[in-house]
Structures are given as structure tokens and as C-alpha cells.
């Protein structure tokens, strides 16, 4: 039986642009910028890259449907380049494709890119036309007139009701999540939103989709991030400090959450399932103890809160205690979002999975951009990237180590 790709693949270089409102840059510009940093870090030449993958989601907004955008922007020389799409986990999907290709022996060196140019859509939040097409044209007939925050707000409503939190208690719990990310982002020069905010400010912010307010929602940004990977045994030929893949799992909803009556709407089922698989692949038995640092998909504060339970960092229904006691703070027992997370680093959809890995890669190398956010002697890092809505989504869990 297949046992995954543990220790078969190494990341030897990464690059990431500053995330934000890049009014003056196209998707092509952002990819070139990330690629340049990545190539320099990996110490390989462009011509050594055997195959490349590009992850992005909203093809409607200025990037297009095919991988031509990337092959032409980077001038990749007649190699296979493939666009992959798995909602907000498209960046992780891109990395998985490159790693699996290397692990299979089909290629020596692979490039995984993630990019999104969201800020050309003309308004705040995610592009509505694309949200309306989750199920193709049928969405317009049968899906509610929903937005991204609304979908996740329904998890908050249910979590509060299920665990007996008053609106005040629930709002305070998730406010702390955003408070922590804003604090971390002050030490994160490439982050989109770098200003600290108080818990009171967060709780009093205008409501976007009850119970989520403005600061419960992540930054909507432009950006690109990428990685170059090779076989583990070749890694040191290029990079003195390679980071090794321990586990790489992706899972997508079966329809049960949306249509069957067994899901409580107060957690993310795909994350639960794939976390179990990823820990098995990596040989982890106690995630709370063994994971040194994590970057998770905090598209909304409530998402990060329930993800802590789904990843087995906190007991079911008890995450409030860990959040409010600072367990996930930079100086806590398990720092989460040292770079500010989606909340503050920003969320250019297709780039996010690779941005998370960029931070974990740098943390494990001891090369976090600022000393204030460098975790002390981390062993294993985890990225959790999800996309879609809580009732129908894709989640990825990737674990890497030195």
C-alpha cells in the first residue's frame, strides 16, 4: 500500500511578493517577481526546470483560463506547464502537483506557482460573478445570494449556538484570533495589513455578515508566491538548507456536508479527514505537541478557530480557552500565523497556499524576515489551506521539516 511522499521531496527555493493592492502590477509582473527571488534562493537555472504548475482561481479577473500566462511571462522554454484550480487551495494544489511529479521520478526539478490578481474587480471582497458559479450556471438558479463571509459566518452562528457561547463571548473569541494576526503582521514586511488593532476595535467594527465584522475578514489582495522542488537526495546540491516534505494531503467534500444530515456546520469536515491522513503520513501522533509552527487558512477568524480543533491542536468545542490564553500567539505553545496569516498578510487566492509554505520554509531555516517573529528552533511546520465554503470545500494539510 502506498505510504505517501514523506522525505522523498525537498523544497530548495521559494519566492513571494509583497501582498497588497498592486494597482500598478499585472499578474505577470507579480509572477516574475516571485520567480526571480525563488530562482536565486534555489540556486538553479531556469533551463533546469522540467515542468511547472500554476494555481489560480478567479480566471475571470485578468489572469485567464490557461497556463500560457505563466509560461509566456516567465519565458519557460517549451516545458509542460499546467494550470491547476482547487478554489482557495489552488496554490497548495500547484505545489502538490510539482512534489508528486518529482516523487514519481518523472522529473528532476519542478516549479509550483500561485498567483491571483483580485484587485482589478472593481469593489471590495471577492468577485461576485465567480462566487455565483460554484455549481456552474445552476448556482444562479438554486444557490442563495451569498458572499464568502456569509458562508463562513454560518459556521460562527452554529458554533456559538452549539457550544452555548453568547454573541458577546463568541465575538470576543474570534476577535482575539484577528487581534493576534494583526500583532504578528507588524513584524511582517511583506504583509498587506500591518497595523495593530485592539480587541475592542475588532468587536465594534461594522458587521459584514453577522456575526463577522470587518476585522473578522481577511485582506483581499494581489500577489504571487512560488517554490522549486527536487528529489530529497539531490537537495543539498542546490540548497544548503533544504526543507523536506513530510506529508501532503488534499481532500474535497463528497456532498455529505451540504446534503446529508450528519454534519454540524460548526467545523470543517475535510480538514478533520485530511489532518488524520497527513499526521499518519508524517508519523505524527500528537499534533499539539509535535507541530512547532502552523500557517492555517484564516480566511475568516471563525475559520481559524474551528481549524484549531479540526487539526487536533485543541479539543473539540474548547478552542476558546487556547485562543484567549495566547496558546497560538508568537510566544505561545504553538504559534499560528507568525506572518499575519490571510487576515493580515492578505489573500490573493491562488498564491495563499504557497505564501503559507514560504513562511514555514523561512521559519524552519531560521530566516524569518524579522527576529521578532522568528520561532525558536522549530522542527516541524504545517500549512493548512482550504477553499470553497464550509459545506462544500477543499482542504489541504502539508507538513514539512528540516
Amino acid at each position: 500500500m502506498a505510504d505517501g511522499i514523506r522525505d522523498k521531496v525537498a523544497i530548495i527555493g521559494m519566492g513571494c511578493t509583497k501582498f497588497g493592492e498592486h494597482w500598478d502590477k499585472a499578474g505577470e509582473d507579480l509572477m516574475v517577481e516571485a520567480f526571480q527571488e525563488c530562482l536565486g534562493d534555489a540556486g538553479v537555472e531556469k533551463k533546469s526546470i522540467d515542468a511547472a504548475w500554476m494555481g489560480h482561481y478567479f480566471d475571470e479577473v485578468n489572469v485567464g483560463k490557461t497556463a500560457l500566462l505563466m509560461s509566456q511571462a516567465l519565458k519557460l522554454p517549451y516545458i509542460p506547464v499546467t494550470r491547476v484550480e482547487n478554489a482557495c487551495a489552488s496554490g497548495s494544489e500547484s505545489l502538490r502537483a510539482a512534489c508528486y511529479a518529482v516523487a514519481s521520478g518523472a522529473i528532476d526539478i519542478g516549479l509550483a506557482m500561485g498567483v491571483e490578481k483580485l484587485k482589478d474587480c472593481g469593489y471590495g471582497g471577492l468577485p461576485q460573478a465567480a462566487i455565483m458559479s460554484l455549481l456552474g450556471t445552476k448556482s444562479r438558479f438554486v444557490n442563495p445570494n451569498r458572499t464568502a463571509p456569509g458562508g463562513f459566518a454560518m459556521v460562527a452562528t452554529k458554533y456559538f449556538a452549539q457550544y452555548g457561547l453568547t454573541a458577546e463571548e463568541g465575538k470576543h473569541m474570534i476577535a482575539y484570533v484577528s487581534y493576534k494576526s494583526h500583532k504578528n503582521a507588524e513584524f511582517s514586511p511583506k504583509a498587506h495589513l500591518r497595523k495593530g488593532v485592539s480587541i475592542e476595535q475588532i468587536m465594534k467594527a461594522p458587521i459584514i455578515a453577522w456575526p463577522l465584522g470587518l476585522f473578522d475578514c481577511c485582506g483581499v489582495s494581489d500577489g504571487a508566491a512560488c517554490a522549486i522542488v527536487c528529489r530529497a537526495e539531490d537537495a543539498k546540491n542546490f540548497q544548503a538548507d533544504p526543507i523536506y516534505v513530510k506529508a501532503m494531503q488534499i481532500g474535497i467534500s463528497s456532498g455529505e456536508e451540504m446534503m446529508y444530515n450528519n454534519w454540524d456546520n460548526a467545523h470543517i469536515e475535510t480538514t478533520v479527514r485530511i489532518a488524520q491522513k497527513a499526521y499518519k503520513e508524517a508519523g505524527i501522533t500528537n499534533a499539539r505537541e509535535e507541530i512547532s509552527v502552523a500557517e492555517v487558512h484564516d480566511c475568516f477568524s471563525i475559520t481559524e478557530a474551528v481549524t484549531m480543533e479540526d487539526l487536533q491542536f485543541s479539543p473539540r468545542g474548547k478552542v476558546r480557552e487556547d485562543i484567549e490564553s495566547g496558546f497560538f500567539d508568537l510566544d505561545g505553545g504553538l504559534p499560528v500565523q507568525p506572518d499575519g496569516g490571510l487576515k493580515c498578510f492578505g489573500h490573493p487566492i491562488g498564491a495563499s497556499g504557497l505564501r503559507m509554505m514560504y513562511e514555514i520554509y523561512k521559519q524552519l531555516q531560521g530566516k524569518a524576515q524579522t527576529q521578532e517573529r522568528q520561532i525558536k528552533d522549530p522542527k516541524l511546520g504545517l500549512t493548512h489551506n482550504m477553499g470553497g465554503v464550509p459545506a462544500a470545500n477543499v482542504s489541504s494539510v502539508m507538513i514539512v521539516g528540516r
Partner: protein
Amino acid sequence: MTGIISYGAYVPYHRINRKTIFGAMGWLDAATNVKGEKAICNYDEDTVTMAVTAGIHCLKNVDRGKVDGVYLATISSPAVERQAAGTVASALDMEGNIRSADFSGSTKVGTAAIVAACDAVKAGSLSNVLACASDSRTGKPGSGDEQNYGDASTAFLIGNDGVIAEIAGSHSVSYDFMGHWEGDTDDYGHFWEARWITDEGYNPHLIEAAKGVLKQCSVEIDGISKVIIPSINARAAKIVAKKLKLADEQVQTPVFDMVGDCGNAQSPLMLAAALDEAKPGDKILVLSYGNGADAILIEATEAITGFTPAKTVSKMLETKREITNYNQYLVFREVLPVETGIRGEELDAAPTQVARLWRERKEIMALCGSKCKKCGTPQYPFQKVCVNPDCGAIDEGEWYRFSDKKGKLFTYTVDSLAFTFNPPQVYGVIEWEGGGKFWFDISDCDPDNLEVGMEMEMSFRRKYHDKWRGLSAYFWKAIPVLD
């Protein structure tokens, strides 16, 4: 015996006080100062959706398979060519082999549809016909029509078995009397002088029709329990009552002050209210007006004592929410164009695919999903592969209707980011009694009163108006159970 087997009515949840309209527009014409309130459609309702709701009320305890005809009387159909009765039949999950027809052109066709249904059943041509009436007309801002018009719908099931009220006779008078008219390219109607309308049309036509049916059935006016006189303004009905020499208790309470002149649905709505209270043997004289008049004599049978309407008219008149802003009313009626933002514009970005709507009509229009024959799991939409992870049977689903199932609000949100003509946009997950769940927009609710676990029901609504392709797309929304 042919007559009414079941009936249902619908008065929309929203009201506007006529003082609100007068406060905004009275400066233009002091004569539009009319008292009372009127019922108005939410932005997501129209003539068709209201007829469906009345139909659901009517068919609550009826096997829909026995219905072989659907008529809809309206002069405010959302389409010139797309039969409204057909849309209603589709939403009510009717079989394809039925007769359907729209009755239009006048405000007396609501009763004409009932008489036509009765005649078809008597002739043996059809056995059970659903005769609906529904109107949602918009008066021009500043006009008397704007003050008078209200929205409502009714549905009467006409047949031979289990008659609760016999249709004893009818008499019609038809005249090309243009008290009120609207051309095919007009946005609003035209009217002649009010005094001329009552003196030359309304009064004599109603009285002529009433006398005609009484004579035909050899019944004296004293023997009538309730006479239903439609109101075309605040005063006219009283004059007719006087001319017919009716005692006060013989006059069915008008709906004008509470609902308004709801066109073809007005006399049928008053008939529903009368039947809510009727005892066996009660005779009800129904009059309707418009290019002449209809009169129908109806007599309640013993069976009416065993009949409970799904929702009484009086209950629906009590269940309401007031719109206090005249401009919001104008936006609901699509009279006043408003900024939707680019997010709102993009709701129209995917033009309607009619072929897909047709193929999936039972799911979309009738809210039918599947129930697995292997494991019994209800699921929406229809699944070829059973969603129960312990089953997974392929092609074992049979159609299962969710539109008539109540459910619990599993979770919800009140979304201020989404664009809607009635913000904030509320939506949530409904878990149906008996199994199955899906997410829906929530309408007709007070966001502050929503709670996880509260009881919800399904309501047929206009999902969007595709201006590019000139059609309204319909779907189901969830609404709190308000009784």
C-alpha cells in the same frame, strides 16, 4: 354536485400605510388621501409567486395527482408570452397532462376562471380544476390607483367530490366599458372620471349581474348570508350595498382598508374570508367587476364543518410587517432605479440558460429532490448517487418533494455585503423534517428575530429578473413560520 372542494388564499407579509404614500406624494393631489393600509409584495414576489403560495395553501390536504386543470386569472402577469398558469402548475409539481389557461384582460376574470372550472367539471371534461386569481398592480406615483391597489392571490379547487361549497349558479354581464384601461405599451393604467365610472358602470353592472343570478336560482336577496362586493375605491361598495338593500350583517367585510383593490383576487379573497366563517346552508353571493360584472351564488354544504383552511384570511391580515419608507416601496416595484454597485451588476453576469431550467425544472421549479429507495435518505438536489456515505446506491432515487415540508433553521447569517433590493441579505441552512438539508435565501423575516432551531417553511419566490433575456427566474426561499 359541483363546487369548491378546497381553497387557499395569500396576502403578502408586507404592508404600506396609505398615509406613507400620501406623505410622499400627497402634495401632488390632495384627493389621494385615502385611509387604511395595503398589502404589497416583497421585492421577490409577483403575481406568479403569490398564486403558487395560494395554491400550496389550497392543496395542503389534497392529492395533487388528481388535479387535471390549472387556471390563473391576472391582469399583471410578469410575461406576455409564458403562460403564468403553466409556471404555477410547474411550481406546484403538477403532472404534465393537465389543461392550463390564463384568464386576463379584466378584473372580473378571477370569477370567470372559477365559473369556467365549474363548467368544465360539470361537463365531465375535467375532474378537478385549480382556479387561481392573483394580481399585483402598480399605480403611477401620485395617482389614486397607487393608493387603491393592493396585492393578493387565491386558489379554489373545483370538483365534484367532497364539495364544501356548491356553485349553485352564475350570471355575467359583459360590456366594453372603459372606466379603466391599459394599452399594451403602457407602464400604467388610464382612468375616466370616478363619478362616471360608478354611475354608468360599477353600480349598474354589479346590480344587473346580482339580480340575474338571484332570478336564475330563484333566491331572494334576504336569503343571502353574505354578499361580496369588490371595492374599486374607498366608497363605491357601500353604494351598491345600499342599492341592493342589504342589511349590514349581509355585507362581507371589505378588504380594501387592509389589502387594497387586489384586482382579480379581490372578490375571491373575500369569498375565502366568508368561507372561513361559513356554516352549512349559508348562501354567499360573489360579485366581481371589470368590463361588466360576474355574479356567482355559492352555498356551503355540510362538509364545510370538517374543513380547516391552511391559513385563514383573518390570520394573514394580522401577520404583517410595515414598510415605512415610500422610496423602498418604489424600489420593490421597480419604479425607482437604484445603484446596485458592481457586485449587484455581476449578479446578472450569467445569462439564464433556459434549456437547463427546463431539464431540471422539477428540482428548480417544484423543489423536488430524491429519496433513496435503498436507504430512505431524502436529499436535495436530486442525486444519481445516494449521498448517504453508508449507502451510495446508484440510480435508486425516486422523486421527493421538499416544497411542502417544514424544517428547522440549522444556521444562518445576515449578510450586509451581498447586494439585494431588500438588504440585508439573509440566508441559511434548512434541515427538513423527515431529512434532507440545503441552503436557501431567507425572505419575509426580521433579522433580529432569527434563531438557530426555529421553524421554517418554503416559499416560491422570484430569484432574479434577467433583464438581458426578459424573464423572471423563480426558486424557493425559506421563511419563518409565522403562525
